[in-house]
């Protein structure tokens, strides 16, 4: 099942399934258990929240705040629909990673498969080969981005210098837990649109962001412990009191 961002304001999903490969191959897999929901098992027809089996979609509302003046809160569907589209726009024979967030349905708990890959239903050697390449590329990017957030933000979270061999797994766990938070809001990072999950973990605030568009759509953008100033801005974006 493919999970996608759902925009209550627009009454539609913000992303679509990658039907560019004939609909048989689910190219995009990332972050099992990510609570960004909204489902279209077929990959062709967006389902309304009520159609989801026992799932409560996370509603992402409000505009992306503070993009550059030329930008608007409208999703650039012409480009953001997928890498195949963007590749076409650049005239490149370029297939890249990851557009959709996919994962199992157990948002609240269960075994997390951080780097998950959607099902491969294509036929023929070429389709399988492409799927394998995409899976490999996807996993590489996912691991790379996790590592970088670890290097840069884990020391602040743990309150000490960190070492990858011992601290990466706890860091991954914090990100997974935060990704299940239903306090979800739009946030831009130097104009890059992301969907952010704000959580209270072990008595501390934590935010994890996933790219909402572009080449890295669906991938981890960053994760960190926001300071007081950041919290104020994020709570404003969330439209809620302190979590």
């Amino acid at each position, binding site marked *: 099942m493919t999970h996608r961002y759902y925009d209550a304001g627009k009454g539609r999903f913000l992303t679509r399934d990658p039907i560019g490969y004939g609909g048989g191959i689910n190219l995009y897999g990332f972050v099992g258990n990510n609570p960004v929901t909204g489902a279209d098992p077929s990959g062709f027809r967006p389902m309304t929240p009520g159609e989801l089996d026992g799932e409560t979609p996370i509603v992402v509302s409000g505009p992306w705040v503070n993009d550059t003046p030329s930008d608007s809160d409208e999703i650039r569907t012409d480009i953001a629909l997928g890498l195949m589209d963007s590749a076409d726009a650049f005239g490149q024979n370029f297939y890249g*990673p990851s557009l959709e967030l996919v994962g199992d349905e157990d948002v609240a708990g269960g075994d997390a498969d951080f780097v998950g890959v959607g099902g491969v239903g294509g036929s023929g050697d070429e389709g399988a080969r492409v799927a394998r390449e995409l899976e490999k590329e996807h996993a590489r990017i996912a691991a790379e981005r996790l590592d970088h957030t670890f*290097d840069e933000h884990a020391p602040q979270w743990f309150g000490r210098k960190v070492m990858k*061999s011992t601290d990466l797994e706890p860091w991954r766990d914090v990100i997974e837990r935060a990704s299940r938070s239903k306090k979800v809001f739009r*946030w831009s990072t*130097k104009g890059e649109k992301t969907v952010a999950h704000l959580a209270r973990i072990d008595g501390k605030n934590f935010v994890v962001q996933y790219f909402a568009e572009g080449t890295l759509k669906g991938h981890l953008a960053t994760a960190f412990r926001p300071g007081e100033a950041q919290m104020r801005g994020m709570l404003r974006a969330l439209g809620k009191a302190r979590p």
Partner: protein
Amino acid sequence: MRLPQGELLKVSFYWPARTEAEALRELVAALVSQGARFTGEAYVHRGAGIRDEPFASPTDELSHQVYISDLRSLARQMRDANTRVVSVEMSGATGANRGIVEIVTYVRISESSVGRDRHPLTIRTEGWMFCGTFRQSHARRAKRVGRAVYGRLRLLVERLEPAYAAITIEEFMECPTDLSRGPSSISFTDFYVSAGFLGEPDLSRVRNLFPTAYAEPIADGVYISCTSEFNPAGASVDPLEASFLSVEAGKIIGAAGTRNRAARDR
């Protein structure tokens, strides 16, 4: 003084011909010459012969705190073959944020690049004013910080002549080997790249990718900026479009690094 909090603004540099230690020492020296000060804290890895051993990231090993108060004490630490200096904490390194510790350190490279390529170096400071609601509520501060960082990058590029450099928020600037592994870098939206590294034809290709961005000749290359705060003209490119262009620029830079390394190996 407090440590920087996310989101982080990073000014990153890459030199293919300097060893990591040389690059760190020269970057820190250049920052000192532009008014940066040591806070005293620095972190090292310790182990027999570790200084010259390849590594992926400062978080590979346990870091030990040492006191480095000036260039002389930095040089002393670097002379020890059993010590690898991995980060130096400074104030005033970017010229952007007062009262914030700014960290000069190595950018992680992938395991497959270890021993094959150099680490980019980066200066980390706070960049929250470029994010979310703050970009409007703190627009003047974002502009001030952005211009200061642009100015600092310009001075450092002219003095240290890196192959390429970039200003990013949260994103990490990859080494050429990592860039050539997969087209996914969105770090090249506000960046410098040198003709010496790319060659004139590829420099033109990169420049032509960004026809509406701010472009300024610096050193022997060009600084391209897609974000209004990071260039004096206030020019901007749609962030989504800029991110796709960055991927293309990253491919060209990665390919140039591969080509240059092959030429050196021959």
